[in-house]
Each structure stands twice: as structure tokens, then as C-alpha cells.
């Protein structure tokens, strides 16, 4: 029994081993790289390897994916890997995914699977463009140099394209910044001319052949390495603020000995060759309010050039950054909202802005992008074309109550290739825009209410003192007199309507209308007379005899005026109804007019006197 199970296990193992190579993520032995052209760009601190791979499917089943491998020395410094197919407008970016545990491939090699746009059938060929970017692959050697020395670096990479497939023909071109090369791997055929070293063509390179490539050469381009924190603050009032905090260091050969400013200034090309002298930031077009400062304050050495496609900012650090030196600074700018914020059909807002560092030739070791959205934004989602770590935070700034939602995106080792657009979409209700002005309104309203409350508080201690009581009494009387004055003024306006009606009568001759108007006016005057009486009573109650007398005089005068106006109306109507001779009527009316005029003036003066 035991023997039988043992046999079965062995048999199963054999079957498993036989079936394994047939699974999808395996090395297809039918793929052959017919021609590989590699270009290694070593001109700056980042190494860019672009390979053009032409491969052929010599089998019969179509191939959907292609495997790429990286030697350990390359994989350790990998910052970016990408593959494209096609040229010019038809160029498409392919998905590249790390895979592991493929039989027949040593685990020391890193493998990437490229998904092809369309399957390559049996006997067909296809061409891939693969770009990989490596940082820190060029090590300063010697590690310390004096101010007058040039910087020498040692690059360690792979001589061949490490491929799980056999390669029929392969050649590599290495581009160097200068023609000074101390040493390089001599794998024949190899040719060096000027700033270029050509390796190959090598024919029939075996799959997974790893050979080391070492070049020791001069590279004075600055090794600017930074930690960067970008804050992108969106305001729906029409602005996107960007604040970038840099912690930068020169990762090149360390500066040895003292620094001579004189020598540095006098021999610019010969002294401090690996120093970071200036930085170039490429900002989006229409960037404005650009500032550049560090802890001490504004750094004035900067220039801005704007075109319709880009805003270029040239910055000089406060001091030249010699090898191993550090600096911290902040670069900030504003961008117009309409260039970056969009509204989808379902109402979601979409922010579309670049992810990476705008400075050229800077390797960012730790990149943090904080997207600060307006208060009231909900349901935040980010879509970044490469993997990033995400977190959430809340920020309280100007006129905030509950705080603004912050989306924190983190990426380590970001290079130029990561300077791609990414999208943050969120929900926002337009009404939430009013929260800030309403907060300000509430603040001012609170001030007014506070001053109203203050004036209402009576802080007098001796409320029974004579002077306080006198003051209270004076205010009371003054208030009654003011109300009386207002009432009498209103009565005067009402009474004037009689005269207006008489004028109308002389024009139209409508006696009935004039009578009706007079009746209405007299009615309302009778009503307001009650109010006048009430005010006078109130004044009597207050016990100010002088004020009461003054008021009584005015009221009497006003009564005379109203009576005269009534007489005038009566006379005019009588004349129209022929009850009175026109001549007598004219005379009487003229006298009344004069009397009314004089009385009006007296009443007016008396009302004014009441209020004083």
C-alpha cells in the first residue's frame, strides 16, 4: 500500500514537471531576439538605457507577452521601466509588470512581463522599445575630491541585454559626457571614439547571460538628489497653489579641503566642476506669483521666462552646492484653475496635474505629493499611472471650519519619467463655496451684535442718584418731543394734500373730487390728532412743564394752520359752486394764502425747536 502511494506521488511529480513549461508565464523557447540595439546614456547622474528589441516567434502559437530580465546590479538601482511599441503617432505604451517564480530563471534576476498590444503569430516579428532608468548606478570614484579636481565616476552595469530568450545579434552604444575615460570593460569587439563606446555586435548571445560592464569616466554634471514635498492646494475661487519644499544635496564626490570662493569665481570651468551652480524648473504655462526662498528669506538670484507652452524658472542656490553639501529651499507658484480642474458629466471634479519634480536632472528620493482640496470635498480618488502609497489627512487653513481633505501620495525614487499627469477626482457641491463668505459675514454680524449689546448694558452704580434720574428724564422727554415732531411733520404733509386738491380743482373744475379729497384728509388728520393728544398726555405724565408748554404752543399753532387750510378749501369750493362772488372769493383766498404761508413757516420753525 505504502509503495503504491509512493509511486503515484512520483508519477504526479513527473506530470507536474512536464506541464509546468506550458503555463502562460513561462519562458517561451520559440521567441528569439533577432536584433537588439542598446543605448546607454551616462551623461548625467541617471543612467537611461533604451533598447530596441526585434524578436521573432519561431513557434506556431501566437505570443501575447514578452519577458524582460534585469541583472542584480541593474535591478538594485532601477527607478523606472517602461516599454512602447510602434513609432511616432502610433506609439503605444505597454503594461510592464514584475513577475517572479518562473522556472528556469535564477531567482537573483528580476523579471518583468510586457503585455503586447496584439499577439505575435508564428513566424512573425515585432519590435519593442524598452526604457529603463537607473539612479545611483554611477558611484563617485574617488569618493572625495578637492575643489580643482574633476569628478570621476564608476558605472557598473550589464554588458548584455539580460534576456530569457536567445539573442541572434546585439550591439550597445554608451554615450559619455566627456571623452575622458580612465578604464572600461574590454569585451571585443569594442570601439571607443570621442564620447562614445560601442560594444558589439555580438552574435548568438545565450539566454540569461550576465556579464558585468564597468566604465570609469569623468562626469561633472551635478548629482542633485532631493527629498521633495509638493503641496497642491485647490481653490475654487480660481487658483491652484503649488508649494514645493526641497531638501537637496549634492550626491557627487564629496568636497575635500577648504572652499575658496575666490578660486571658484575666478576659474568657473576649472574649479568646483561638480558643484550645483543653478537649477532649472519647468513649470506649466501661465504660472504666476512665483517665489523662491529659504529659511533666511527671499533668494533673489532667479530668472523667469514664459512662453505659451512653459514657464521656465532659473534658480541659483544661495551658495554653490559642492559635493556632499546640502540646502533647503521652497519654490512656490500659482496656476490658473481652469487649466487643471475639470467637471465630468456626473458632476465630479477632476484635477489633472503633473506628479513629479519640475526641476530638471534632479533625482527625488522621497517624493510626497499632498493634494489639498477645498472644504466640503468628498469621495476622493486618485489615479496615478504608476504605483504610489496613499494616505488621507486634514488641513486647517484660512477660513476653515472642519478642515480641508488632503490626499497624500508618496513615491520613492522619482525621476523625470515620473513627471506625468495624474488625476484626483472628488465630489463638491457648489453651495459649499459660500461657506467662506458666510463665515466672514457672521464675524461682522457678531461685531455689530456685540456693540448693540454693549450699548444696552447700563453700568451706572448709583441708579437712584439725582443726576442719573435727571439724565433719564431728559432722554425720555426728548424722545417724546422727537416723536411729536415726527408726527406733526407727517400731519403737515397730509394737510398739504388739501392745497394740492384745490390746485387740481382749478384745473379740472371737479368739485366732487375736491370735496372727497378734503374729507379724506380731514378724516386722517382727526385720527392723528388722537395720537398727538396721547403724546401730549405722555409729556404731561413725564412732569416737564416747560416741554409740555412748548408742545402745546406748537400744537395750537398747527391747529390754526389746519383751520386756515380748511377755510381756504371751503372758500374755493364756494366760488366754484357760484355761492360766492368770484371777486370776493379771490380776495378772501389771497388773504388765506398769505396767512397759511406765514403759519406754515411758524409751525416748521416750532417743530425744529422741539427737536433741539
Amino acid at each position: 500500500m505504502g509503495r503504491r502511494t509512493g509511486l503515484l506521488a512520483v508519477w504526479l511529480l513527473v506530470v507536474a514537471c512536464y506541464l509546468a513549461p506550458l503555463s502562460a508565464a513561462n519562458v517561451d523557447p520559440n521567441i528569439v531576439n533577432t536584433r537588439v540595439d542598446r543605448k546607454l546614456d551616462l551623461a548625467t547622474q541617471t543612467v537611461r538605457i533604451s533598447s530596441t528589441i526585434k524578436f521573432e516567434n519561431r513557434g506556431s502559437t501566437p505570443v501575447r507577452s514578452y519577458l524582460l530580465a534585469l541583472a542584480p546590479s541593474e535591478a538594485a538601482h532601477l527607478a523606472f521601466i517602461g516599454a512602447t511599441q510602434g513609432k511616432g503617432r502610433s506609439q503605444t505604451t505597454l503594461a510592464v509588470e514584475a513577475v517572479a517564480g518562473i522556472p528556469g530563471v535564477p531567482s537573483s534576476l528580476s523579471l518583468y512581463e510586457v503585455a503586447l498590444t496584439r499577439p505575435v503569430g508564428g513566424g512573425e516579428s515585432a519590435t519593442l522599445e524598452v526604457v529603463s532608468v537607473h539612479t545611483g548606478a554611477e558611484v563617485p570614484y574617488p569618493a572625495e575630491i578637492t575643489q580643482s579636481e574633476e569628478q570621476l565616476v564608476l558605472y557598473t552595469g550589464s554588458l548584455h541585454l539580460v534576456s530569457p530568450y536567445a539573442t541572434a545579434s546585439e550591439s550597445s552604444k554608451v554615450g559619455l559626457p566627456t571623452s575622458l575615460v580612465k578604464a572600461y570593460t574590454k569585451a571585443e569587439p569594442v570601439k571607443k571614439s570621442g564620447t562614445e563606446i560601442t560594444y558589439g555586435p555580438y552574435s548568438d548571445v545565450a539566454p540569461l547571460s550576465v556579464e558585468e560592464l564597468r566604465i570609469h569616466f569623468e562626469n561633472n554634471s551635478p548629482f542633485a538628489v532631493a527629498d521633495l514635498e509638493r503641496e497642491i492646494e485647490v481653490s475654487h475661487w480660481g487658483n491652484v497653489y503649488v508649494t514645493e519644499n526641497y531638501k537637496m544635496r549634492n550626491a557627487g564626490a564629496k568636497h575635500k579641503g577648504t572652499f575658496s570662493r575666490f578660486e571658484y569665481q575666478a576659474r568657473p570651468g576649472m574649479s568646483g566642476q561638480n558643484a550645483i551652480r543653478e537649477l532649472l524648473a519647468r513649470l506649466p504655462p501661465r504660472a504666476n506669483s512665483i517665489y523662491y526662498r529659504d529659511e533666511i528669506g527671499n533668494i533673489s538670484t532667479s530668472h523667469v521666462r514664459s512662453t505659451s507652452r512653459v514657464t521656465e524658472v532659473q534658480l541659483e542656490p544661495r551658495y554653490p552646492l559642492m559635493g556632499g553639501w546640502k540646502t533647503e529651499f521652497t519654490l512656490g507658484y500659482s496656476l490658473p484653475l481652469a487649466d487643471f480642474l475639470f467637471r465630468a458629466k456626473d458632476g465630479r471634479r477632476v484635477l489633472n496635474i503633473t506628479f513629479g519634480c519640475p526641476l530638471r536632472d534632479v533625482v527625488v528620493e522621497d517624493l510626497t505629493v499632498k493634494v489639498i482640496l477645498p472644504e466640503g470635498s468628498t469621495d476622493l480618488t486618485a489615479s496615478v499611472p504608476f504605483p504610489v502609497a496613499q494616505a488621507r489627512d486634514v488641513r486647517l487653513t484660512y477660513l476653515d471650519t472642519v478642515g480641508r481633505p488632503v490626499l497624500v501620495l508618496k513615491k520613492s525614487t522619482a525621476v523625470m519619467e515620473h513627471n506625468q499627469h495624474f488625476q484626483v477626482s472628488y465630489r463638491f457641491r457648489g453651495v459649499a463655496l459660500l461657506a467662506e463668505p458666510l463665515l466672514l459675514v457672521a464675524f461682522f454680524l457678531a461685531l455689530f451684535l456685540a456693540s448693540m449689546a454693549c450699548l444696552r448694558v447700563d453700568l451706572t452704580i448709583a441708579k437712584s442718584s439725582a443726576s442719573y434720574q435727571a439724565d433719564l428724564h431728559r432722554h425720555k422727554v426728548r424722545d417724546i418731543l422727537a416723536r411729536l415732531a415726527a408726527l406733526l411733520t407727517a400731519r403737515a404733509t397730509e394737510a398739504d394734500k388739501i392745497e394740492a386738491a384745490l390746485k387740481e380743482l382749478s384745473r379740472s373744475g371737479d368739485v366732487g373730487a375736491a370735496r372727497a379729497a378734503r374729507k379724506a384728509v380731514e378724516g386722517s388728520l382727526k385720527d392723528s390728532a388722537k395720537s398727538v393728544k396721547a403724546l401730549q398726555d405722555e409729556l404731561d405724565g413725564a412732569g416737564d412743564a416747560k416741554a409740555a408748554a412748548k408742545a402745546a404752543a406748537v400744537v395750537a399753532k398747527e391747529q390754526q394752520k389746519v383751520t386756515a387750510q380748511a377755510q381756504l378749501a371751503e372758500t374755493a369750493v364756494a366760488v366754484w359752486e357760484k355761492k360766492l362772488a368770484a371777486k370776493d372769493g379771490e380776495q378772501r383766498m389771497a388773504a388765506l394764502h398769505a396767512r397759511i404761508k406765514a403759519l406754515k413757516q411758524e409751525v416748521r420753525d416750532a417743530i425744529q425747536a422741539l427737536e433741539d
Partner: protein
Amino acid sequence: MALSEMQRVHSPVDPVLYPLLAVVLITLGLLFTASFFIYEVTSSKFSRNIVRELATGGVASVLLGFGSLFLLLWTGVYV
């Protein structure tokens, strides 16, 4: 959905108008404030009218609130 099919989002008020709005609203707001305080100090406890006080103060605070918002935006403090 592609970005090219989406609508661009603009500010509800054209930023060009911020200086004008700030000046006009704050001027009017200060006039109402002046009127409010003149009334406060000239009226006595007997003659005070709370409706009039609240109306003047309310109008003044709305004008000053929006005026100072546009002042902030004009000076570059995008809230």
C-alpha cells in the same frame, strides 16, 4: 471618461472683477457701518429701534463679509 470631453471649471466670479468688487463692497459696507454707529450713539434707550439697528448692521455685515472675501482673493490669499 477622457479629460477632453470634460468641461473646464472656472471661478464663479471672474478674477478680473475682484479688485472692483472688493473696493465697492467694502466702501458701501463701511458707509452702512458708519450709519449703524451714528444711530447707536445718537439714539437713547427710549428711542432705539431694534429693527432698524439689525437691518443696518445686517446689510453692513453682508457687504463687509463679501467685500473682505474679495479683498483676500485680490491680494492672492485664495481661500
